[in-house]
């Protein structure tokens, strides 16, 4: 019942935003900023770039509200815009070869008060970056959408303008590459805490 009420409110904001109501779109920014920011952060691996990309994704979505198809979930459409922007940014970057052990340890905001736990969390984030960086941009986007946002194959296909079979193939190759990278780079000192965080990012 609460979910349907939330959906009704969101539908109202979407209708108002389509008429150019900036305040209504601000509510959508509040609702989806964490999801979009996380996708951008996983794609780009840097706090400042993720902030810039997330802001730009919302701006593009705001400008394109007139073209938004109500039949599609807004989250899928919005994250698709963010993913495409991030893919473009990755392709524009100059490739600077840096040894793995010299990768910067990006400062990531963590709400945990325990410094030891913060260190572990930062190391985990770095491992995620290193793993995802072994993938090509579209593969990375597919992995992030699948494992952080629980998108179905169809949703990923629609978001990345691919066929479902292409998505399955890319994800399969990505899984193989990630597992092999895990073995090759000797991440095996990592012992994940087996408290399963099943909650998706959305």
């Amino acid at each position, binding site marked *: 019942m609460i979910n349907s009420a939330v959906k009704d409110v969101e539908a109202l904001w979407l209708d108002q935003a389509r008429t150019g109501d900036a305040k209504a779109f601000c509510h959508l920014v509040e609702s989806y900023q964490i999801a979009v920011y996380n996708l951008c952060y996983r794609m780009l691996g840097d706090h400042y770039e*993720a902030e810039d990309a997330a802001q730009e994704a919302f*701006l593009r979505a705001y400008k394109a509200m007139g073209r938004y198809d109500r039949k599609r979930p807004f989250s899928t459409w919005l994250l698709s815009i963010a993913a495409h922007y991030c893919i473009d940014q990755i392709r524009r970057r100059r490739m600077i070869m840096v040894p793995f052990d010299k990768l910067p340890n990006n400062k990531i905001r963590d709400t945990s008060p325990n410094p030891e736990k913060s260190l572990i969390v930062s190391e985990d984030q770095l491992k995620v970056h290193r793993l995802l960086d072994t993938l090509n941009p579209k593969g990375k986007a597919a992995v992030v959408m699948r494992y952080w946002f629980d998108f179905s194959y169809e949703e990923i296909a629609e978001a990345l303008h691919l066929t479902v079979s292409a998505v399955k193939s890319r994800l399969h190759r990505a899984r193989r590459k*990630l*597992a092999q990278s895990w073995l090759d780079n000797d991440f095996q000192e990592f012992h994940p805490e087996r408290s399963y965080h099943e909650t998706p990012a959305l």
Partner: protein
Amino acid sequence: MKHQPYKDWLLSDELLSFDQSNKLQEHLMTCESCRQLSMAWSDVQHLFKSVPLVIPAVGFTARWNARVADKYHKNQRRQSWWLMFLYAGIAVFLLVYLAYQVTTAFDNSTQLLLIGINQVTALLSFANAVQDIVLALLKTISTVVPPAWWVVLGTTICFLSLFWFVSLRKLIFSRRIIL
């Protein structure tokens, strides 16, 4: 040792059939590399699930609003510049056209002088005609209307003008009330 289709199965997202699952388990018991790959993928999945969400810095929406406002102002400035260049272009075109017209006119300056004199003469004739009409009208009215009425009319006009002037002054200059 054959590793297919076992590698595909252990990396698959979809549920395996009972038969496939059994065959995979049997293979993993004998194949070290596939077992390591399976454990590696399991560890990667756990890492992805356990790493927490990253929260953007406080004030994300406010920064987005500022970005939208900034883009809007930049668009406005760009449009203003384009309009300015457009008007400047039109002005330059008109100046060039005028200069061309004047230059061709100077080729025949005598004709230009005659045209000018004709225009001035026509204006003076028109003014003369209007003057004649007004004088004739005034003569006619003065014979019809008695002189006393002229005095009354003149006084009324003066009084109304004074009244208008005072009202205007009161409306423009606001009174200051000192307590």
